């Protein structure tokens, strides 16, 4: 059997899972995940900055890991779980990270925010209360031109604290 081949003018039929919703798409194979999310699925929460891997604003999670959607091809992501910023809030309630960012003014223009939120979410899923250096390291691939980063770090710490308290309260119940 020949390997699956998609010709340039041909559209590929791709099954993508985005924010736990299955999608059947017919897209040209050279469209990036960033383009497909924004243009075909209408999920414009994922931002486009450099489109060359140099800024991190297009970050989404693939199976829980932060990756750059501007350098990812949907055809290579079938069967993987994709999470965008639209998938963070649950039942109309902000994710604790979003809540903390809003309260502490960790977003100014907000352009870097979706990418930062997802990267931070992946970190907190792996490590409940990361020290500030770890947060800095984890967010080293997300540029912000407005905040000077301090409030971003503060907000991630606050969210981490609330999440781990919540988890402990939940476990105690």
């Amino acid at each position, binding site marked *: 059997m*020949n*390997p*699956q*081949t*998609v*010709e*340039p*003018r041909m559209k*590929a039929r791709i099954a993508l899972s985005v924010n736990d919703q299955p999608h059947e798409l017919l897209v*040209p*194979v*050279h*469209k*990036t995940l960033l*383009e497909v999310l924004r243009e075909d699925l209408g999920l414009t929460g994922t931002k*486009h900055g450099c*489109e*060359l*891997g*140099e800024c*991190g604003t297009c*970050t989404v999670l693939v199976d829980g*890991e*932060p*990756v*750059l959607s501007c*350098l*990812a*091809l949907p*055809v*290579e992501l079938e069967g993987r779980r994709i999470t965008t910023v639209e998938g963070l809030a649950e039942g109309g309630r902000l994710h604790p990270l979003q809540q903390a960012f809003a309260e502490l003014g960790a977003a100014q223009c907000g352009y870097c925010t979706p990418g930062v939120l997802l*990267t931070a979410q992946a970190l907190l899923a792996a490590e409940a209360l990361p020290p500030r250096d770890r947060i800095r*390291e*984890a967010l*080293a*691939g997300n*540029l912000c031109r407005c905040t000077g980063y301090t409030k971003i770090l503060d907000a991630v710490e606050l969210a981490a604290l609330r999440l781990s308290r919540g988890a402990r309260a939940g476990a105690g119940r």
Partner: protein
Amino acid sequence: MMRLPPFTYVAARTLAEAAAALAEHGADAMLVAGGTDLYPNMKRRQFEPKVLVGLRGIRELAGVRGSAREGLTLGAGTTLAAVAAHREIVTHYPALATAAGLVSSPQLRNMGTLGGNVCVDTRCNYYNQSFEWRRAIGFCMKKDGDVCLVAPGSPRCWAVSSSDTAPALVSLGAAVRLVGGGGERTVPLAALYHDDGIEYLAKRRDEIVTDILLPPVDGWRSAYLKLRRRGSFDFPVLGVAVAARLEGAVVRDARIVLGAVASRPRLAEKAAAALVGRRLTPELIAAVAELAAGPSKPLDNTDFTHPYRKKVTRVFVARALRALGGLGDAGRAVEAIA
């Protein structure tokens, strides 16, 4: 939007399928692993392959096998994040773990592979630019033109080898396994490179890097230091990898490899030879650092001025050697941000 040009995508499931696709499409085809070097270059029209052969679906390319005692086999498809976090590599081959962990940003390390990193394209200020920029200034010989814009009289291209892991791997004595239409071969990684900005890989187009082989650790210690403007994202402007085997304070074997100073990782052989059989004293370290910086002739085609890069070469070689010798005052062992 900065879009990719159209191409045919072949999702290979086995090495044989990938090799067959490369053979069938010849110069029109390129391999893609993580895509973190290839896709930006395609968006800037530095590469215009008609066919991409995707390696992600090939199971046998991912993962690390073996042990430090017998040597490790690293599949070319192993991500840089996995290499940087691998316990055995962190403990016994620290130059490699450090180099992999300093590539670009966390997101790129989740996507980029070791195989892609050793094959990463050479770089130059006149080449890593958008199509419009390159057209405006007049194309260079690496793509679409016929002169070198750094050294206009030069018959060759001076684009710079910019892999972080390659100098570290060469210092560790790594080998590389290649599989192609003509069969399989294993060569020292140092032999994978030519000192030419365009033809920088000494392999046939239809050869696929399948594994990187690390020799048994056997008492070797190693360190890698990287110079770049920012503490994240940036390619190396200088990489210094040093590996050595010591008996007490006496050096038995040593390799010093410089990255980002030529179109290939450069072995500083005289400097390494000057270490062998001698005690690692501050005086010896200073002399060896001077020798190592000697042959490095960085051109003015990356970030920072070339006299500065040369000066830092000396400083980094000395720091790496002090770190290996367990001498204090090794400075920031991992990275200096100027």
